[in-house]
C-alpha cells in the first residue's frame, strides 16, 4: 500500500539558534505517500523548528533533503517549498476575514488566473467550487470568510494549501505534503471530530504532517508518530503495528510518569468561608443572562459550556474587559461597576490570565521586563518610584527556576521563547503577584503535556494558599483537575451547578 520511497526524507538535520540553544540535533524523518504522520513533543522540543525547515522558512545548519530518493538542497523560502510539494497551515489563524471564500483560496496565486491585469473571476469561481465539492466542504464560494465557523475556516485553509500545491507544483501530483501545525487548537470538541474526518478523506490527495499536543487525536488519526525531546528524535511508532497507549506516548514525550491524575483528588480542600466575589443576576444582553454565583476564598469555580454559551464573556466581564448591562458584581464586598478597566479590577485583587500569550505578553521585551510589569510594587526602591534592577533580576530568576523556563538569560527577548515557555512565563508573573482572585481563560491552550503539568501545579499551589479562581476552558479534563464547583452554561443561562465529582460522572456518561 505504501510506496517504498518516501516523498520527502530529511536526514540528520541540525539547527542552532543564536549560538546557544540547540533546537534540533541530527533529526531524521520520512514522509510517505498518502499517510498522516504525527509529530509530538513538549514545547521547545524542536517541532516548530523542524516544521519551519520543512516549509522553507529557514534552512538548517546541516542535514540532507531527499525528494523521492533524489538529493536536493533545502528550500530557501516558503514558495520554493511549495514548488517542491510542501505546504504549511499555521496554527495562528491565517485567514483574511474580509475576503470571500474563492478570493481567499486564490490569494497569492492570482497571477495564474489573470490576463492583462484583469482577474479571470469566473474561472477562479469555477475551480473554487469544484474544490469545495471535491473536499465536501459545507459552504459557498460567495460566503465571506468571517461568516464561516472556525472549523470550516480551518478546512478552507487546508484546501488553500492543497490548491497552492496544485497550482505551483502540479495538478495531479499526489506526492505532496501538507503540514498542519496544531490545527485543532481553536476548535471545540465536535469541530475537532469534523476536521479529522475531513483530513482522513483528504489523505487520498496528499500526505499530512500533524503537529499536535492532544494525544488521543494523534493516536487515533495518524499512521506513524515521531516523538521529539530536547531537539532529538527519541521515539518512532508505527501505529498499525505498535500498540501504544496515551500514557506510553506521554512518557516518551516528557521522559517521566503521568501525574496529572494526582491533582484531581485535591479538589474541595482548603476552601474557606469568606466570600471574595459575588455575581448577582449579572446580564450582558446577547451574551449571558441572570448569572449568579459566590466565590469563596481558595475556591475554584469552573464555567462550563459550548462555545457561544457566554462563558468567555462572563470571565472577561469579571476581568473588566467587557461591560455588563444589569446585575451586581462585588469584589471582596466592594461593588465593581460596569465599565471599570482591567487595571482598576487588578487593584481590587482580580487578575486575569489568558492562554493566548499575544494578549498577555510584550513580545519585544525581555523575560525580565515581562515579569516585572505585573510585579512593579515588589521591585521598587520604596518609598521612591524607582525600579531596583537587582530585585527585578532576582524575582525573574526565581520564577524562571520555579517554572523551568529555558532561556539563555533574564534579558532574552520574549519573542524567541517557545510557545510553552511563553505560557509558563505568563503564568509565572501571576504566581509572583498572588492576586486574591485569579481568572483563568484557556490557561493551557496549545501547549504540551509537560508545560501543562507545570502550570496545573503552580495553579493548585496558589489555590491551596488561598487564591480564589474562576476557570473557563475547552478541555473538560481541566475542570475536573482544578475546580471545586462547575457551573453549566447553555445559550447564555445557567443550567445547573455541579461539584467536581458530579461533573466527572456527567462528562463520562
Amino acid at each position, binding site marked *: 500500500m505504501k510506496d517504498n520511497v518516501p516523498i520527502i526524507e530529511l536526514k540528520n538535520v541540525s539547527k542552532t539558534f*543564536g*549560538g546557544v540553544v540547540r533546537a534540533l540535533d541530527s533529526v531524521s524523518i520520512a514522509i510517505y505517500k498518502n499517510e498522516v504522520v504525527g509529530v509530538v513533543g513538549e514545547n521547545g522540543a524542536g517541532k516548530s523548528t523542524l516544521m519551519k525547515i520543512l516549509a522553507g522558512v529557514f534552512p538548517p545548519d546541516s542535514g540532507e533533503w531527499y525528494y523521492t530518493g533524489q538529493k536536493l538542497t533545502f528550500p530557501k523560502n516558503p514558495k520554493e517549498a511549495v514548488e517542491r510539494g510542501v505546504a504549511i497551515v499555521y496554527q495562528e489563524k491565517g485567514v483574511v476575514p474580509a475576503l470571500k471564500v474563492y478570493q481567499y483560496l486564490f490569494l497569492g496565486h492570482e497571477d495564474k488566473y489573470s490576463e492583462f491585469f484583469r482577474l479571470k473571476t469566473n474561472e477562479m469561481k469555477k475551480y473554487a467550487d469544484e474544490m469545495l465539492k471535491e473536499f465536501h466542504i459545507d459552504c459557498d464560494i460567495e460566503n465571506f470568510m468571517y461568516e464561516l465557523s472556525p472549523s470550516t475556516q480551518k478546512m478552507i485553509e487546508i484546501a488553500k494549501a492543497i490548491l497552492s500545491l496544485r497550482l505551483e507544483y502540479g495538478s495531479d501530483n499526489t506526492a505532496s505534503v501538507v503540514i498542519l501545525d496544531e490545527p485543532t487548537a481553536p476548535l471545540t470538541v465536535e469541530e475537532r471530530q469534523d476536521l479529522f474526518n475531513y483530513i482522513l478523506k483528504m489523505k487520498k490527495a496528499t500526505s499530512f504532517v500533524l503537529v499536535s499536543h492532544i494525544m488521543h487525536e494523534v493516536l487515533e488519526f495518524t499512521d506513524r508518530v515521531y516523538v521529539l525531546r530536547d531537539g532529538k528524535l527519541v521515539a518512532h511508532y508505527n501505529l498499525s503495528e505498535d500498540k501504544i497507549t496515551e500514557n506510553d506516548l506521554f512518557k516518551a514525550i516528557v521522559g517521566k510518569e503521568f501525574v496529572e491524575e494526582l491533582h484531581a483528588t485535591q479538589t474541595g480542600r482548603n476552601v474557606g468561608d469568606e466570600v471574595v466575589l459575588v455575581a448577582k443576576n449579572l446580564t450582558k444582553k446577547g451574551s449571558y443572562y441572570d448569572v449568579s454565583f459566590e466565590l469563596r476564598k481558595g475556591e475554584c469555580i469552573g464555567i462550563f459550556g459550548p462555545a457561544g454559551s457566554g462563558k468567555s464573556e462572563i470571565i472577561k466581564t469579571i*476581568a473588566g474587559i467587557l461591560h455588563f448591562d444589569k446585575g451586581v458584581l462585588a469584589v471582596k464586598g466592594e461593588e465593581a461597576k460596569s465599565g471599570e478597566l*482591567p487595571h482598576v479590577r487588578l487593584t481590587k485583587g482580580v487578575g486575569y490570565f489568558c492562554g493566548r500569550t499575544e494578549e498577555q505578553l510584550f*513580545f519585544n521585551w525581555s523575560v525580565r*521586563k515581562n515579569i516585572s*510589569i505585573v510585579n*512593579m510594587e515588589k521591585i521598587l526602591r520604596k518609598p521612591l518610584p524607582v525600579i531596583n534592577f537587582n530585585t527585578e533580576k532576582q524575582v525573574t530568576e526565581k520564577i524562571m527556576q520555579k517554572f523551568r523556563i529555558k532561556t539563555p538569560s533574564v534579558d532574552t527577548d520574549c519573542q524567541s521563547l517557545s510557545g510553552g515557555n511563553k505560557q509558563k512565563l505568563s503564568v509565572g508573573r501571576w504566581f509572583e503577584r498572588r492576586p486574591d482572585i485569579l481568572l483563568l481563560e484557556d490557561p493551557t491552550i496549545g501547549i504540551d503535556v509537560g508545560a501543562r503539568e507545570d502550570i496545573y501545579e503552580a495553579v493548585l499551589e496558589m489555590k491551596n494558599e488561598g487564591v480564589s479562581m474562576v476557570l473557563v476552558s475547552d478541555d473538560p479534563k481541566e475542570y475536573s483537575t482544578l475546580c471545586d464547583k462547575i457551573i453549566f452554561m447553555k445559550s447564555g443561562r445557567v443550567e445547573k451547578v455541579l461539584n467536581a465529582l458530579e461533573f466527572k460522572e456527567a462528562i463520562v456518561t
Partner: protein
Amino acid sequence: MVRSTIFRGSQQNMATIVSVIAAIAIISTFQIINPSFLSPQGRISLVYAMSYFLIAACGLTMVIMMGSFDFSVVSLLKLAALICVLYIDDIGLLVIPLALLVCTGFGFINGLLFARFKVPSFLATLGMSLVAEGLALYLSKGFLYMITNRTFRALSVTFIGGLPSIFYWGLGVWAVSIFVAFYTPFGRHLYAIGGNPTAASLCGVDVVKTRINAFMLSGFLAGLAGVLYMAQFGGGSIEMGADMSIPLFASVVAGGTSLAGGTGGPHRTLLGVILITWTQAGMSMLAMGNDRQLVIFALIAIGMSVLTTNRKSASIVK
C-alpha cells in the same frame, strides 16, 4: 558561535551605531567644508541650535515611545515663548510658571481627547496645535516683541565653561528623561503601552492616566523649551520656529525611536537631535537656502528610518 553572538548584539544596537556613524560623518563633512564649524564660536552656534530643540524632542520622544503622536509641540513652544515676551513687563518672572502651566494644560487636553475620548492622537494634537497657534496669534497680533529683562535672559545665555547655560538645561532635561524612561514605573508603562496596549491594561497599567501624563509631560517640556528659546533669542514673533515640526519628528526617528511605539527612548534622541540640528546649523553657516535644507532633513529622516528599522522583527507596517 562567537561571531553570531556579536552579530546578534550588533543588530540590536544597529540604530545607535548608524546614528553615531551618521553624526560623525556629518560633523567631519562640515568641518572639512567649513573649518570654523567646530571653532569656539562655531561650537556656541551648534549648542544654541540644539539645546531648546533637545528639550522639546525629549517630550516628544515620550509620546512617540507610547505609540502616539504629538503635533502640538512646536505650537506650544511658540505659545510659551510669546507668553513670556508679552507679559514679562507686567508680572515679571511669574511668566515662566504661567507659560509652563498653559502648555501643560494644553498637554492635558491633548491627553484627555486622545485617551478618554478616543480621538486619534495625531488628529487631537493637530487640532490643539491650531488652537494654540490661534491663541498665540490673537495675543501677539503678529507683531515682533523684544525682551529687556536681564534676569530672564540669563536663564539661557549665562556662560559656564565656555558654553551657554541653555546647553546645561538641555543636558539636564535629557538626563532626567532617560532616568524617567528606564528607572521609573511610568517609563516602563510608556514602553508597555507602545508595545501592546491590551496586555498593558491586563497587567495593571492605567493606560488612560499614563497616556494623559505623557501628553502633559510633552506639553510641559514644549513649554520649557519655549521659555528657554525666548531667553536665548531675546525676542520673536508668531513666525519663529515655523518649520520646526518636521525636523523635530525627524530627530526622534533618526535617533532610533520607532513611530510604531514600544522601542527606542530619550537616550537615542540626543544623537538624532545632534544629527538634525547640527546639519541645519552647518547648512546655515554655509548660507544654504531653506529649500535645500528641507529636502536634506526629509532625506535624513527617511534614510535613518530605513537604516534603523529591524525588518526581521517588524511585522506588516501600515
